[in-house]
């Protein structure tokens, strides 16, 4: 049986009439810390119980390679060496890389597209927010390194531009 909100309420009711400022409680299953503040209490709880994985649950190792966003984020090993003179377009934050504004729409750019520093070249979606990524340099798209709908770490090189 886990710690419930009702349990905490009961404990607080006991503590309210007592001269204590804080309570730390630790069992094999949870850690609870209660502190008196100006006119109430604050609570920090940590449930320690390990998840109970049901038999027949798919092996995560099998599943991990099937989905669209399952690529390993670190791609440095397979990254082609930077050709001299090319400018990198990097992921400004970690998220999912999209080449088009929405599914089915044409990509923002292709290899060979001319860009200015303000040209939007792709989207990085993080926590349901779409972040436009601009080219940052004027020139021509020389390489597109990331794959559409794949996860990219912050700083991952997504594309390379041949500057003017």
């Amino acid at each position, binding site marked *: 049986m*886990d710690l*419930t*909100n009702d349990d*905490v*309420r009961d404990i*607080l009711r006991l503590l309210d009439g007592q001269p204590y400022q804080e309570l730390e409680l630790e069992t094999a299953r949870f850690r609870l810390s*209660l*502190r008196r*503040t100006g*006119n*109430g*209490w*604050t*609570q*920090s*709880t*940590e*449930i*320690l*119980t*390990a*998840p*109970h*994985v*049901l038999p*027949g*649950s*798919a*092996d*995560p190792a*099998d*599943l*991990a390679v*099937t*989905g*669209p*966003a*399952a690529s390993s984020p670190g791609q440095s090993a397979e990254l082609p060496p930077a050709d001299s003179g090319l400018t990198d377009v990097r992921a400004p*934050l*970690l*998220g*999912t890389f999209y080449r088009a504004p929405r599914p089915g*729409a*044409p990509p923002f750019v292709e290899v060979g597209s001319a860009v200015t520093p303000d040209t939007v070249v792709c989207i990085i979606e*993080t*926590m*349901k*927010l779409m972040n436009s990524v601009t080219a940052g340099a004027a020139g021509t798209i020389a390489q597109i390194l990331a794959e559409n709908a794949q*996860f990219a770490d912050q700083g991952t090189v997504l594309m390379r531009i041949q500057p003017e």
Partner: protein
Amino acid sequence: MILRRILIANRGEIAVRILRTCQQLGIETVLAVTDPDRDSLAARLADGVVFIGPPLNYLSVDAIVAAALSAGAQAVHPGYGFLSENAQLARACDKAGVIFIGATAEQLEAAGDKVAAREHAVAAGLPVLPGGEIADPMRSGGVAAEIGFPVLIKATAGGGGRGLRVVSDPAALAGAISVAMAEAGAAFGDPRVYLERYVRSGRHVEVQLLGDGERVIHLGDRDCSVQRRYQKLIEEAPAPFLDQGLRQRVHRAAVTFGEHLRYRGLGTVEFLVDRDVGDFFFLEMNARIQVEHPVTEAVTGLDLVAEQIWVAEGNALRLSQDDITLSGHAIECRVNAEDWTDSFRPSPGTVIAATFPSGSGFRVDSHLQPGCSVPPFYDSLLAKLIGIGRDRAEALARVRQAVTACEIRGVATTLGLHAAVLASDEFAAGGVDTRFLQGFLDRIGSEAGSLG
């Protein structure tokens, strides 16, 4: 049928929320978890977990149905977001002999398609914003005259507030439509636009419905006008300063819409209330439990998840409209993992500390605990802080106290913004419109700028 084992096909705070009710009802819980959520609080609290693989598989109908079957669950609770309003999941569950805890597939389709929902609203006699599609800019005058100026030009394929344009002067209309069509064509690949009545100052007011497929009742209203880019930040129940006659008409309209659909389960009908003329218009229906449901629970004393399960078990509603009594006031702040001082930049990471207010007058719904991770794949909601009081002033004092007492370390949060909004005179007065927050942000931004 009495449900004994439920698969929860969701994550975060709502998974924890659903688990709590199931535990109280003595229902076994199995949680579907993706790889990044394997050590989540919900996974630790559930009676069992089933791995469903990569991060986005909460969106996979096949993965969810397979998980339900392998877990021997009799029902699936979809929570909100993800597949909660997905008719395919409802049908797939039906086919697999598993109960989908939600509306019927037909109702999900009726509510989920904006055009279909609007047609249903018109058929049910609800007021909708007057509007119409424009094929030819030169022949738009008649439509606009019927709607009345100012009008709003909207891109048919647009969304999220993009491609909007307000026209007050009839002489400028044709030109503005031509420009809007060209822009829409470039931005969305679809030049179609339509005209709609422009509501200068609108409030977002919604009504909580509960139905069993025959009978529909309402559980009062909520005000969710504090929004940024159509994302709600603060919600409260009841909606403050709503004229009593208007409030009753809004409630009746929502119930009429639910009855028209013969609605089953928990749902919300959203309205835009025009502050200038005191009119209201149907916006859309959400056929699922909503993030802001705790404020309704606080003022009705009901457990909405328990009512969802009751209806899913095939029972008729156990409440009549007369059983619903509303008392007190509740205000909820959605704390997100975003740096609100840096364009609301998302802030995934590892939580080092998570301390929340405790005791009577507070409710906190959260999945955070020290050491947990906030993955970048999902929405940024960290916690909902709810202040509950006998009246709005007391609820406001409590939620202010809750925001002050809350401490989350390891990721950036919107706590500071909540504190600022709750301290503002406008919010304290009550009844702000949907443009309030953007204006507030602009003001404090320029103040900060002038200080720097």
